[in-house]
Each structure stands twice: as structure tokens, then as C-alpha cells.
């Protein structure tokens, strides 16, 4: 799948935005998603999901959340847990449960935490190079903020971490020259 924005790089990221209750979903490459983050001046991207789900929640109103029988009966094909089991124990059975119960969980987390979109760290192994690049982008944004706020000690730490990650990228590039590692 290619990036919806540039069409030249493979899309590794899925961006969901909700404007006036209308949901748009796009698949973007790391370069374009980074551009997208910079396009919003003075806007802290890390809170975007929080703000968006805040809007959704308002729309839904304060109706008491009583899952309907259909929802309660949803079953995870991997571990056999039902949504009812989850409501009783508060615990999910396995990693696949997040896929099986994605709808009701989205509602629940939106209410509980104001968001259901992860914006933090991505393990290196998940997307390899892409995730390192995205981690670098995230740190660069923080660096900009730290410099702006004259938090120089923090800025120095961030700079070191960016350097370390950049070095990792270079090492990967060198390592994959011989072989054919591709994400």
C-alpha cells in the first residue's frame, strides 16, 4: 500500500481524523505523517488524539454505558473470552482481544482516558527503520519545545538521544547494504 499523500513511499501509518463528526482515514508514509505534524503551528501533536476523542465524547453525551447483549456476546476467536468476561473481570484474555472488542473498547477508553490512540514509543522491532525515524521526529519536536522554553539541560539530553538513534539508523543502513533487509 502506497502513501495517500505522496503516492511514492509505502504507507506504514494509519491516521484517523475526525472533523465535525466525520471520520477520515488515511494511510501515510513516515515522511508525510511528519509533515502533517509540522503543519499545525504551535499545536502539540501528542494531545491530538486526546482533543479529538474529547469532541466525540461530548457528541455522545453522558449516557450511561450499559453494553447491549450483542456487544456482551462478542467473543475473541483466539482465547475464547467474551466481552461479558471482560466486564466482569476487568481483564482481557489475550492480545487479540483488542481486535475482537475494538469498538466497545474504543468507547470505553475514550471515556476513561480521553483517547484511544497511542502516540508514544514504538518498539524498534515493529517497523524497524520507520519507527526509529518516527521516534527521531518525535524527539525533534520535543527538542524544539525544550529550546523554546529554554530548558537547555533537557534539550541536551534530547539531542543525545536523537544522535544515538541517528547512529542506529546509520548502522542499520550499513548492515543492510550487504544483506537485503527491507521493511
Amino acid at each position, binding site marked *: 500500500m502506497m502513501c495517500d499523500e505522496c503516492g511514492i513511499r509505502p504507507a506504514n501509518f494509519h491516521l484517523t481524523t475526525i472533523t465535525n463528526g466525520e471520520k477520515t482515514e488515511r494511510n501515510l508514509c513516515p515522511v508525510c505523517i511528519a509533515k502533517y505534524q509540522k503543519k499545525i503551528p504551535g499545536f502539540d501533536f501528542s494531545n491530538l488524539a486526546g482533543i479529538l476523542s474529547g469532541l466525540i465524547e461530548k457528541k455522545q453525551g453522558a449516557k450511561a454505558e450499559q453494553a447491549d447483549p450483542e456487544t456482551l456476546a462478542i467473543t475473541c476467536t483466539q482465547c475464547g473470552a467474551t466481552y461479558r468476561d471482560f466486564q466482569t473481570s476487568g*481483564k482481557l484474555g*489475550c*492480545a487479540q482481544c483488542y481486535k475482537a472488542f475494538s469498538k466497545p473498547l474504543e468507547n470505553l477508553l475514550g471515556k476513561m482516558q480521553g483517547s484511544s490512540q497511542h502516540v508514544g514509543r514504538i518498539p524498534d*522491532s515493529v517497523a524497524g527503520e520507520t519507527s526509529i525515524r518516527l521516534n527521531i521526529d518525535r524527539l525533534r519536536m520535543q527538542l524544539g519545545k525544550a529550546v523554546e522554553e529554554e530548558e537547555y539541560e533537557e534539550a541536551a539530553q534530547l539531542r543525545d538521544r536523537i544522535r544515538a538513534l541517528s547512529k542506529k539508523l546509520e548502522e542499520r543502513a550499513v548492515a543492510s547494504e550487504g544483506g537485503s533487509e527491507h521493511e
Partner: protein
Amino acid sequence: MNEYVQAPQQDVVLSSRVRLARNYADIPFSGKLTKDDAQEVIRRTVQSVSQSEQGASFSFLRMADLSEDKRLEMIEHNIISYDMHKYAANGAALISSGQTITVMMNEEDHLRIQGYLPGLQVDRAAELAFGMDELFCAKRDIAFDSRWGFLTSNPTNVGTGMRASVIMHLPALASAGQMSAVVQAVAKLGLTIRGFYGEGSEARGNLYQLSNQVTIGRSEEDIFHSIAAAAEQVLEHERSLREKAEKTDMFKLQDTLLRSYGELCCARLMGSREFMRRYSDVRYAASMGYLHAPIPGLDALMMDMQSGSLAVGAGKILGEREREILRARLLRERLPKLVAD
């Protein structure tokens, strides 16, 4: 004589901790975990750690091999989580030699990676935890989803899977009746503060734990920076109230606090509730310079005086009265030695 090193802001902040919840993608979560699954969690985790550079500095413990008191002692010294008690049957832990890093296995999640440091050092505690986390995340088997983030057994931890916290000593804020204002203020930042020891609204020893409530929709750095920033605010407030109390009537303040030192040095029976109250006074006195005792030493002593640690020290299960006698005796021996003349 004493080799205690003062950590940043230790007059108010006892310690900083960051815990990361991680699970293996192909193994059922704790609720559906079989004995064999639990064994596999331990096998993979121990293998990852022992193959790493720092592997040799970790020691491995199975919870089932330890007595209840020994587990309690480790909980009281913040080495393992309170819930390890509940998951003792399959639980295990890898503990770094300095006890600053612990990897708990088969707790509510397959892995709970903890970085723990004295004083206000949330960022460094996070570094410790993330350094360890990279070991596991380098392999492809950690449950992660680009939308949900790190997948956890309880969805209240999903996303970053991170709980960052600091333990604060707030006697002046508590006695000024300002804790409810603090609770409300930190709630606005997605944080929560509550008594660290004791139940309900009780906060024994005036010790409070400040931690994040939100785990998804914010980056890890964003979360622990807000904890550190909130802790700074609260501690400034606490310090200014301590100064105010001194300005109002220094002799009264010194008298109140130092009488507790006298009690701790002379008592023959010392219950845990009274001990925590007196410890709070003595710690307060030390932070004001009324008593020349190293604060880290007082905190270490406080942890050693908890019930599990007392029993481990005594080498047997203790009854309530035996504990009170032993606590009083150890305090008479150890507390005066901490205080320089």
C-alpha cells in the same frame, strides 16, 4: 560514619519510580495464563536479560520460593510491586544488583519493568526502565498495535503501559489542611495523589504517591514531565509552608518534632501507626536542620521497621506485641547512630 548520599529534592521527595507493562503477543494474558505459559514467559524473559550486556548483574527469584514475609519485605523496600503477592504462584523477578531495576514476571501483565531511584529523578528512573524495555522490544514478540500502543491485560494501562510515580513527604501541607486542594490541582493534569501507606484517605507518615492516571493519547515523555513538573510545584508549596511554620513559632515547631525523636529513642513498645507519625516528625526535623540525620538513612530505617522486614530480620513470624517490642529495640539501637552530634 554514614555513607548516605542525598538525592535531588530528598527533603520532600523520597523516591521516583517508572513501571512499564509489557506482554508477549502470542501468550495469553494473566487471566488465561496456564502454568506452562507462565513458565514460557519466565524462560523468554530470563533468556533476553541473561544474553544482554548487563545480564550478569541481575539475580533471579521465584516468588513461590520465598516466604510471605520475605516477599513483604521486598514490597516494603519497593523492589517488587504489591500485586506480586497476589501473583505469587507463578510470579518471578529479575533484580539488578543496585536494586534500581526490577523485571517482574507473571504479575498482572507478563512483564512489569521498573526503574526506581531515590529523590526526584523521574526522568532517570524512566531511562532505566526504557533501557531494559529495549531488550524486549528488540524482539518481535511484544504485544503492540499501532493504534492501541502496548497491549496490556487491563485496558486502563494500554498505550504507553507506563505508570510513573513519586513518593512525597508532605507534613506541612497535610497539617495546614491543604491536601484536598493539591488533589484537585493535580487531577487537572491527568494525575492522581493519594496516601502511600494506609487505606482510604489515610496517609501514614504523611507520605503521598503522585502518579499518572492517563496512559494513552500522551507520549511517555509528556507524562513523566508532567509528573516531575507537578512534583516540583507541590514541593515548593510544602517548603514554603515549612518555612512559614518556622517563622510563626520556631520553638514550638522544634519542640513538637524533636519530642518525637525522644519517643523513638526511648520507647519500649512501638506500634506501626505511632511509628509512622514519629518518623514523619523526625524526617521533617532533619529537613529543617534541627536534627543532623541523613534523610536517606531515615527512609531506609523506616522501610526496615515495617512488619515484613522486621520478621525477616528476626528470622521468624512475629506476633503484634513481639513486633512492637522489636521495633522499639531496633529504633533505640539504630536511630541515635544515624544522628551526628
